[in-house]
């Protein structure tokens, strides 16, 4: 499945009925060295674009927003002791969590990879 992006630099990718969520490589690069990821609680329900998690780098603390609505099914608990995985692979091993109960039609409100790349050029 393809990745979709928010203008706040989260990404989401459907994997069967679940959605994998993370922050974009661009966001990870802008944050610099990531020192802490505030993982969401399993079972937490979020609406699209609500605050889902938090992330801190040497430079700043930021919120991570839910790219789609859903319930947190799993978190990447490797990030608890190794948040630098987000710097090493924000759009792969540095994923944040998986959401279930997702309505795939909400992806229509997001940017596809090409549109996100174009959006970044305009920043």
């Amino acid at each position: 499945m393809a990745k979709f992006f928010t203008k706040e630099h989260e990404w989401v990718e459907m994997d069967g009925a679940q959605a994998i969520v993370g922050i974009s490589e661009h966001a990870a690069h802008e944050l610099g060295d990531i020192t802490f990821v505030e993982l969401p609680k399993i079972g937490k329900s979020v609406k699209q674009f609500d605050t889902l998690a938090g992330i801190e780098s040497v430079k700043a603390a930021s919120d991570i927003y839910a790219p789609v609505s859903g319930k947190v099914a799993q978190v990447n608990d490797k990030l608890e002791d190794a948040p630098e995985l987000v710097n090493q692979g924000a759009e792969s091993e540095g994923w944040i969590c998986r959401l279930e109960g997702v309505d795939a039609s909400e992806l229509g409100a997001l940017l596809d990879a090409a549109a996100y790349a174009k959006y970044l050029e305009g920043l």
Partner: protein
Amino acid sequence: MEDLKATPLQAQHEGLKALMAPFGGWLMPIQYEGIIAEHRWCREKAALFDICHMGEFRFRGDIQAGGLEDVFTFSVKGIPVGRSRYGFLLNPSGGVIDDLIVFRLAEDEVMIVVNAATAPNDFKIIASRLKEPAQLVDISAQTGKLDLQGPLSREVLVEHLGSELGALPFFKFTRTRVLGEDAIVSRTGYTGELGYEIFLPSGKTAELWELLLKDPRVAPAGLGARDLLRLEMGYSLYGNDIDEKISPVAAGLTAFVNLDKNFVGKDALLKERETGPENVKVAFRVDSRRSPRHFYEILHQGAPVGMVTSGAFSPMLSCGIGMGYVKPEAAALGTRLTIKHERVEMEAQVVELPFYTGGSLRA
């Protein structure tokens, strides 16, 4: 947009693709490869910092008759030639105008090294407290400054600049020749590691920078890493942890104040010492990897007691660390604090400084 000053190393920073940002009126390198990688390099090898933004003044004259002896919180006369001392320039209320280091160059000559943002005001105030014919000259523009810091800095320096530097003890300096020019090499720094500050003519700074960077043991480090390094040692950053409204008594820095001599601000300090400061500095360690940051609120048993002035994630301790000012009842070692800002909240405990004790500073 304010007019930012540039150090003689702009081309070098550009070549290294440094992330540049304003600091104290200067455009300075914040990071090259990455703040944590540069921090680690300094703790393990030798990191090179462009510190040309700092101010340098030269005083010539009789230290007592010229008035210099009463300017700072420490005795300048008492510094042996070839040694330096850290302390403060205070306002009459005891607030810190700047923290600085005085180098005793000769019987009747000293160099005063001050922070960048405060340098113009420092110069005016110091000059106003002196008596003719003593002379104070601002030599910042013609003075370059590079800091080489880290456990390997001594062997690097000895190899490139001369074997006599190997014997330099902590807080001692030597007047020497670097790249054929008069220079000062001082065993001081702001990192908690064995390290040196090198003062040389600004026109030679780029050449020394490039010479040292050719050594595989040396890597450039920016102000981001410098801030982490100093905070792990509990060193104050002027403008964050100390300023004109904070006295050395409140800041817990009376070790750098000599109350047996005269200086501007002394009466205020004596009074504050008697009544006790309204707020006092604390150091605290966070229970998690969360970073406290400047201006975050400090609470004790649910009530606001103060504010964070410096904070970061400590790579050496793998947790958040910070300093701030709190009401005295929340300052005892072991006191539990909550640090809060909007949605971010963390639990912390008051601890002793320094946070990091494994450095090579006195090696």
